[in-house]
């Protein structure tokens, strides 16, 4: 579907927009802007996606929804591996993450990879927030194009 291309391009422009200005911008601030954009999109998107689905029976069920349906909708594939310690930490492995798949295979451009993950961290956090799960989402890359997202659920 060609609309995917538009989404990819908008995402690329968003990344290059927050990082424009070269050295003098603060990396954290730029990343948090992207994260916020992702959050806003995710929060609204999930509302439309889950309009007709039933209630999720527990947190794990919600995570499965993220790994299967949400990922297929947004990134056209499922998460390759989901792990949890059953105490509120979930790790999602994607062996071929779409925003990284055109960049490199291996370690080239590794230092820029986190920029392309911030939006998605926000997206996941936004989706979960709207499904009633408050959490912190971080991402990690050691080898392009694989990456993993860690979701830490906040309780209390």
């Amino acid at each position, binding site marked *: *579907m*060609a*609309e*995917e*291309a*538009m*989404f990819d*391009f*908008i*995402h*690329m*422009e*968003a990344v*290059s*927009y927050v990082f424009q200005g070269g050295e003098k911008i603060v990396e954290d601030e730029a990343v948090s*802007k992207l994260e*916020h*954009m*992702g959050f*806003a*999109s995710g929060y*609204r*998107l999930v509302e*439309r*996606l889950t*309009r*007709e*689905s*039933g209630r999720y029976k527990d947190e794990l069920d919600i995570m499965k*929804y993220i790994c*299967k*349906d949400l990922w*297929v*909708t*947004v990134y056209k594939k499922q998460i390759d591996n989901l792990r949890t310690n059953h105490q509120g930490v979930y790790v999602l492995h994607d062996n071929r993450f779409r925003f990284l798949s055109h960049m490199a295979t291996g370690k080239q451009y590794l230092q820029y990879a986190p920029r392309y993950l911030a939006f998605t961290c926000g997206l996941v956090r936004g989706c979960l927030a709207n499904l009633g799960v408050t959490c912190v989402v971080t991402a990690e890359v050691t080898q392009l194009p694989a990456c993993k997202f860690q979701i830490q659920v906040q309780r209390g």
Partner: protein
Amino acid sequence: MSRQSMRSNDPKKVSGELFTLTYGSLVAQLLKDYENVDDVNRQLERMGYNIGMRLIEDFLARANPGRCYDLRDTADKIQQAFKLYLGVSPSIGSWSPGGDEFSVVLETNPLAEFVELPDHCLGLRYSNILAGVIRGACEMVQLEVMAWFIADQLKGDNVTEIRVKFVKRLEDAIPAGED
């Protein structure tokens, strides 16, 4: 697996929404960063230009449209591109007598699907990115054009209308140092 069946049965629709919402959050961020809407308009146009420059490659590879011999060809291809990338079919019309200017008229604007402009944003050209995309894409096929919005549904018009004006044909430049 019961949930599988409940998934929205039109994945195409959903991915369009994803794009719309992402664009919305980008515009919201720009409005937060810049103090006045003119800067936002300019920034959106510039982003569109950057996208257009890359999108044209995808378009040429995907749709294989061939060369344009006059502006009417170009207009047809812009129409085709809208269909391909945004899933809408704009109509082309309001040709100027000299044939160097036309309008792209959108009955529905997918970018603005869930949007309402608040009062303090009346100067905002929400979909200005599209004007930039047209300009950037045309430049890569050696057409310098100007594109701007003359009507916008978000501002109460019946349709969204983008005016495109041909400026000049760009010539192949000889690399410096070679004659």
